[in-house]
């Protein structure tokens, strides 16, 4: 026992040899996340140029300095993402195993989204070159642009995905059926399920604080997906049986909650399932669609932000990298939301951002 304890301590102190710099840099980045006071200032802005001026006084600095006025929301969005990606790439480029794989795992999620985006686009006869800028830069891979070669999922697997890290998640969705919209959604969710479970297992295998922090976050992610899949499936052709296959099984809902969700027929049933879980009950209770209420989606986001912020309370683990990326993404969504409200002169809902710190 003493030996184990010792080993654990050793690992903690050895963590900094390889990852101390990166963790430090990540925590430094995290300190640059906008505070409540920044948001209060941002929502007072009259124009996007005001917004730019205020962001200049934060860690964002001169990231918009070379953009011509008047600013577009899309430009802000692109620049925000560009900056985040640059930071992530910096960390990724300096990482060694096992952090490298951990960081790669984070990008797989974006790959799935990109693939689905491109296939859907291809189905609607949109040229790839038009779709590519919309793809998340973290989720690109070499073969991605040739994705419209595939017309069935088998082809998709054999031609495109077999060389990518996503191949191992694809096992369950190989079929000769032509790709159509429902199909694609199923592929996306199946892929995501396999991805989340694999990521969950990987984090668990890493052990230590990483497992503690990441499993908590990923379990929530899994449960959120299960809820949302269920809620979105009402009124579609998706059969209950198919639906239950899409639920990621690494969450806290597994197995009883998922079984109950599989039987659900309307949103009321979903809410009843959530009643059994303390944290989800609170989310469902606070949510509503009336004006002034927060949507369930926002509630989920808030909870996610809370979990991610908590990740920074522990040291010597990889969760901070994941948490930082997610927090920063939330921040980008917030800024874009505020910018949209400013640009469209629609200030009523400008306060619907999700504060982080």
């Amino acid at each position, binding site marked *: 026992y003493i030996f184990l304890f010792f080993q654990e301590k050793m690992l903690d102190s050895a963590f900094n040899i390889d990852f101390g710099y990166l963790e430090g840099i990540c925590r430094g980045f995290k300190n640059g996340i906008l505070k409540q006071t920044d948001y209060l200032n941002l929502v007072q802005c009259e124009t996007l140029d*005001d917004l730019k001026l*205020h962001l200049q006084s934060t860690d964002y600095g001169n990231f918009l300095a070379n953009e011509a006025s008047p600013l577009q929301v899309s430009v802000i969005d692109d620049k925000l993402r560009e900056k985040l990606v640059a930071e992530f790439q910096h960390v990724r480029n300096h990482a060694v195993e096992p952090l490298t794989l951990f960081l790669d795992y984070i990008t797989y999620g974006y790959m799935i989204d990109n693939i689905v985006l491109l296939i859907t686009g291809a189905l609607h006869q949109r040229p790839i070159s038009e779709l590519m800028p919309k793809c998340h830069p973290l989720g690109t891979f*070499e073969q991605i642009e040739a994705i419209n070669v595939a017309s069935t999922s088998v082809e998709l697997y054999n031609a495109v995905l077999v060389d990518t890290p996503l191949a191992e998640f694809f096992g369950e969705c190989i079929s000769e059926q032509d790709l159509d919209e429902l199909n694609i959604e199923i592929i996306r969710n199946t892929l995501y399920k396999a991805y989340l479970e694999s990521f969950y297992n990987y984090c668990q295998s890493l052990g230590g604080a990483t497992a503690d922090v990441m499993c908590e976050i990923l379990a929530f992610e899994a449960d959120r997906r299960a809820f949302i899949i269920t809620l979105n499936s009402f009124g579609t052709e998706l059969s209950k049986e198919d639906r239950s296959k899409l639920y990621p099984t690494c969450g806290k809902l597994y197995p009883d909650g998922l079984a109950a969700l599989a039987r659900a027929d309307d949103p009321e049933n979903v809410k009843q399932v959530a009643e059994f879980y303390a944290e989800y009950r609170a989310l469902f209770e606070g949510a509503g669609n009336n004006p002034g209420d927060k949507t369930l989606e926002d509630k989920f986001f808030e909870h996610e932000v809370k979990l991610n912020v908590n990740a920074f309370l522990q040291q010597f683990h990889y969760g901070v990298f994941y948490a930082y990326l997610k927090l920063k993404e939330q921040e980008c969504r917030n800024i874009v939301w505020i910018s949209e409200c400013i640009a469209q002169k629609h200030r009523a809902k400008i306060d619907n951002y999700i504060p982080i710190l």
Partner: protein
Amino acid sequence: MGSLFRSEEMALCQLFLQSESAYTCVSELGELGLVQFRDLNPDVNAFQRKFVNEVRRCDEMERKLRYLEREIRKDGIPVQDTGENPEAPMPREMIDLEATFEKLENELKEVNSNAEALKRNYLELTELRHILKKTQGFFDEREGSMEPGGQTSLTQNLLPEDTKGPIQLGFVAGVILRERIPAFERMLWRACRGNVFLRQSEIEDPLEDPATGEQVLKSVFIIFFQGDQLKMRVKKICEGFRATMYPCPEAPADRREMAMGVKTRLDDLNTVLSQTQDHRHRVLVSASRNIRIWMMKVWKIKAIYHTLNMFNLDVIQNGLIAECWIPVADLETVQLALRRGTEKSGSLPAILNRLTTIEAPPTFHRTNKFTKAFQNLIDAYGVATYREINPAPYTIITFPFLFAIMFGDFGHGVVMALFGAWMVWKEKPLSAKKTDNEIWNIFFGGRYIILLMGLFSMYTGLIYNDIFSKALNIFGSSWHVSLSDEELSHEKEFMLDPTNDKQYEGAPYPFGLDPMWQISTNKINFFNSYKMKISITFGIIHMLFGVALSLWNNRFFQKTLNIYCEFIPQVLFMCCLFVYLVMLVFHKWVWYGGVGSSGETAPGCAPSILITFINMVLMKGYEEKKPGSVCEPYMYAGQFGLQRFLLVVALLCVPWMLIAKPYLMHRNQKRRQMMVQANGGEGVIEEGGVTAEAPAAEQEDMGEVMIHQGIHTIEYVLGSVSHTASYLRLWALSLAHAQLSEVLWGMVLRIGLSSGGHSGGIILYFIFAAWASLTIAILVLMEGLSAFLHTLRLHWERKEVSKESRIVGTRVEFQSKFYYGMGYAFIPFAFETILEQAEENVVAEQCK
């Protein structure tokens, strides 16, 4: 007295500016650079300030100029820097500037987009040319392997003859990035199940990517396949991998014809392209002439509006109110500048009011290029409290001197001094060359320090008589070997006796150390004792000087209490123990040894000073003269009694420092309270009016004062011991330096010098190179750096100030004796510094 000894007196002033003349006035003040404005609306957001639109326009202009500059740099056109310093343009000129920049930017953008389109066209044609050339190769190969009679279409022959009927194979030719080839090939194979045939060939010369202007390597490929379905698929994959496909005729004649066409079109394009480039070049060259000036103008305008944003609006008089710190000596100049500003705009004059304030003013030391480096050394630790004694002027001498004690070598000193002198000599051209090289900038910034350090090292080197670990015998050594050469050749070592007047002249070497020591075997012992004593002596003088400076500080701030309760006991303590120690050292040097000494002053009789001092502090009892020995245990009569007395005085100083000040403060406070009670409420107001800060300070918690004083005392008492020891680093580093240089001579250069013959000359050539570079790298650079750091440490103080408790923690050596360094620097609003910073940013960006 100049402001180098103390920071300048500052005045807080209020400025009333008419809104028409505010801009010109601030512009004048910016040129002057003597005024520090205070932000009067710190709570207002950046985008809610008055002149935010102007700032934004400046940002926009800056962006355009940056774009222009990038383009200029891309073309490698030198930016002319005439060194001209344009005045900030009037606000109405801004519109002209904006229009100019707008026009330039648009023109440039148009030219660029034209050029890009042309280049794209050019790229396509070159690629096509390459394809035609390369595919020719592929087809030729095929033809060569064919039997001579086969006159069918080339693509037919890919399948064996026995299949039924000629099957037409299709093919696609194109160009792809070279690094994508492997994935491309794999993908083709996977998607078409191996039913396609790919040939590829590298294009040797890199092609220019029209969008980014980068050089990229590409490859030509040709894919053969059968059937339309495969064709669709192959085309999709090609698109997916961003390969550009070109039509390539099948017949050789067609290909040749096409190649000819491509060639003529390429030639045409070339002329058009060069014309566009010429146009672009002309635009950029004309812009490059003015861009520096424009940049400066924009920066100045921006700085002015930023400053104006800090002002308060005066609604009634339609003016602006500013608050600023101005050196009292410069009030007149500022007034003049304001007058100039108002004259320019032709409005009512600006009004300057002096305000009284209890706020601590900023610290402002007027420096020139010589004193600046030294001031920076001091400020790097902490900016002096307002009007505190500034250590910088003393540092100018003490810093290089203490450095030189550690770096005492004439040769190395010459190298260093020459380097410093070269930098000082070439000051102007060197400073004009702006670089991002941090190390160089540090050296260059400290050029005067380096020069002085070099000169002082030359001096100490002469005193140590040490030149690259060798000695100079200028005046002739005082020591003589009385043996003949014959006798000497048998001896390995020979001891010289200082009491023998044949061997010692009786008078020391006139300047510095006797060269004889450099070759003696007990050199180290001698140098040890000498350098140790020297360093203690200088250390004590240095510290005492620091304490003495605190007297000036206390007198200046009229803290008489501090003089009686801190300064006097401190000096007494230091003198009774450490100055006495130094005097013992000198006494021992003078009293003992040498020719003609005998009896109790014989060389062997000198007692160890270290032991004497330890015995003194430990209060060892009186020592009797040992029977049968000629030596006295004491150096002079009455030593025992004097030492006891000094020790008692020193010990008495401790409670004096500890208790006197808190007690007196406590008593004063009580008396004041009684007075207040006697006079009623009136007294309070009067008191408060006369001494604004006194009541706040006096009413400090007595306990806190006690703790503070306790720490201060302990720190001083322990400090004087540890600091004295700390000055021993002078000795240690000096010895280390001398030893290293000796080792380098003995281990490296000697080998070269001792090898004879013609080959010896060649060997010496290389060995000297090695020795010289090692001398520079290790002895001058590394050792110099380490000596520099130690000197810095001896000058600086190290203290951990926790603001709340205001407990002053450990402070070391010289500055701790008087320097608090709790002030904040005066940062005047000056265009000069603003432009410098902006330019540094530009340089940094360029280096990226």
